[in-house]
């Protein structure tokens, strides 16, 4: 087993300024992020903000988030005895994008950009925009220096990797270099890239035919407008990337003890290590436990089959199923901890019902350090 992850030390350390929770969809990232934020505020007295992407409705409501308004709202009903505060906000992807545009250009230019059909499509639906805007928002929150700790819940990506890749991909696109190449007429000549250049001409014509010339015009207008005012999205993406690499950031992988989730966590751990991102540990969520593990599954099942007392038989079957689940979970969890013995691990005991209030988050926080 890996060394235990000391969550309280991480939360209490003033040098920890950003915690990024990542992992596959459905593993409890949002709840874990909110529970960490609450504990940082209540137990460690830190002024904390939790940036969530897509919280469950009831959890959001319990934290006082009734709408996507992109503004941190103070969470009421927390214990502020230690001087901490908890704020929470939900990311509004489109509004964040609009704000970025407004911040960097004249109102007239901004209006032009907002009217461009390509901007409308991209700011609300482009695969990767959510990831990019989450990072943009993180950069904004960090730059105000208003917060002791920012806890980020990453978007429910198709794969956890999108989170790292999307900003670079979007910025590569917005840089417009590829687009300028595409729009440029094929130049003949001695270029060693003549095959490529010739292909571009062909390709550009093909794209024009398939998508229509209007699209390329809209697109080039859009990219030119963005390009001129930003001095490159790439630079912004690079800055965000550096913030993530900084030792003041801590990545926490969240995984449920299920094959797919653990496989994604392992993949992500590999990537974080390769990209030199500060991986603080893994949180194994929803691990089942039993106080009476001395009573094994087989013995319980055999006794259940033998007795004619229905209630006892059922209680024994429930216990046997739980014991088998614990066994399975331990095997699945070990595939991660065996592969990454150097990554500290913590676990959260499974709860019978979902969490939708501050009390529930506090319980999760307590379980995380238990």
């Amino acid at each position, binding site marked *: 087993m890996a060394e235990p992850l000391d969550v309280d030390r991480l939360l209490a350390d003033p040098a920890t300024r950003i915690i990024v929770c990542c992992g*596959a*969809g*459905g593993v409890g990232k949002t709840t874990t992020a909110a529970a960490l934020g609450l504990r940082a505020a209540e137990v460690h007295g830190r002024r904390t903000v939790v940036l969530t992407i897509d919280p*469950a409705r009831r959890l959001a409501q319990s934290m006082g988030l009734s709408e996507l308004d992109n503004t941190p709202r103070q969470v009421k009903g927390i214990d502020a005895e230690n001087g901490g505060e908890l704020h929470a906000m939900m990311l509004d992807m489109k509004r964040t994008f609009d704000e970025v545009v407004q911040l960097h250009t004249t109102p007239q230019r901004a209006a032009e950009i907002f009217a461009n*059909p*390509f901007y*409308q*499509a*991209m700011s609300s*639906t*482009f*695969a990767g925009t959510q990831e990019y805007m989450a990072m943009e928002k993180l950069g904004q929150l960090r730059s105000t220096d208003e917060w002791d700790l920012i806890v980020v819940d990453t978007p*429910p990506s*198709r*794969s956890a990797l999108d989170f790292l890749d999307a900003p670079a991909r979007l910025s590569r*696109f917005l840089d417009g270099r*590829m*687009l300028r*190449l*595409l729009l440029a007429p094929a130049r003949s000549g001695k270029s060693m890239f003549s*095959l*490529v250049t*010739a*292909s*571009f001409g*062909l*390709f550009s014509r*093909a794209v024009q*035919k*398939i*998508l*229509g010339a*209007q*699209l390329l015009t809209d*697109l080039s207008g859009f990219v030119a407008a963005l390009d001129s005012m930003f001095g490159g999205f790439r630079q912004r993406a690079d800055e965000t990337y550096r913030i993530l690499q900084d030792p003041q950031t801590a990545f926490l992988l969240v995984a449920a003890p*299920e*094959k*797919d*989730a653990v*496989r994604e966590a392992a993949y992500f751990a590999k990537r974080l290590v390769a990209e030199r991102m500060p991986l603080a540990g893994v949180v194994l969520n929803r691990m089942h436990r*039993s*106080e*009476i593990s001395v*009573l094994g599954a087989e013995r*319980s099942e055999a*006794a259940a089959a033998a*007795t004619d*007392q229905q*209630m*006892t*038989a*059922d*209680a024994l*079957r*429930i*216990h046997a199923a*739980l014991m088998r689940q614990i066994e*399975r979970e331990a095997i699945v969890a070990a595939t991660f901890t065996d592969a990454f013995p150097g990554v500290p691990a913590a676990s959260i005991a499974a709860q*019978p*019902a979902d969490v939708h209030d501050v009390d529930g988050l506090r319980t999760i926080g307590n379980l995380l350090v238990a």
Partner: protein
Amino acid sequence: MGEHVNSRWPARLHVVTGKGGTGKTTVAAALALGLASGGRRTLLVEVEGRQGIAQLFEVQPLPYKELRIAQVAGGGEVRALAVDPEEALLEYLDMFYHLGAAGRALRKVGAIDFATTIAPGLRDVLLTGKVKEATTRSHDGRRIYDAVVLDAPPTGRIGRFLNVTAETAKLTKVGPIKTQSEGVASLLRSPITSVHVVTLLEEMPVQETLDAIAELKALHISLGRIIVNGARPALLTAGKVTKAELKRGLTEAGLPADAATVNGLAAEARAYLTRRDLEESLRGELADAGQPTIELPLLPDGADRAGLDELASELMRA
């Protein structure tokens, strides 16, 4: 026309979605296996580059090719295909514009990646276009596949993924992409297609299931079933547990009946009842959605081939 693979599963294109972690890939694979019984041939398709099918069947990552992944008793087979949007675009361009080697050169410089990224929806048009092509492909007047099962994007993105026309119509007014998206759109709204939503009896997956159903209904996309995965048998139907009775029962069964054991079992039974009450109310919410529902049992030994076959026969019985 009129030859159905299975009268209980009349569609030919089965789109399987669900929240992440609900086991949609497992259910999609089980459905492909089930529909291949009786000597039929099915195609299991994934579109997200996750290689979930290869992992499930424990084989090497799938290339962009239709390969047999499983044989089914009675002479049936399941083929699998991982659709890669870049490959799909190249194939597509080649079909219309004969790009050949130039296409590969373009790929090297990242142009294909760029092109599949520029138009929101273009990627999805290409992916769904490939699925449509496989569904309708025939040879000598006979369909190549009796059924196609798509392991689709999760509930959060399914509406956008399937509603390709609206997305592309905003940007492309003419051309083959426009034609193709219209073809896909009408296939998805015809009885040939059925979209199934996989869920667990947990709050978030059920909420997302209901949201996805409402969204797909509004888009007039053909809905199929709600598939509840990982369902557990109902125990303690009397709904309560008393320690005195437990103590007596344990003693009779020759098991330890000390306070720790009795309290431990009682606590676990109560947690189970809490869980079951929640599951029961979630079942009610799902029933209100008005779609036929199937429950699949939790596989105690995981989704190995035997487990998949068990789920496949459960699905075919439903």
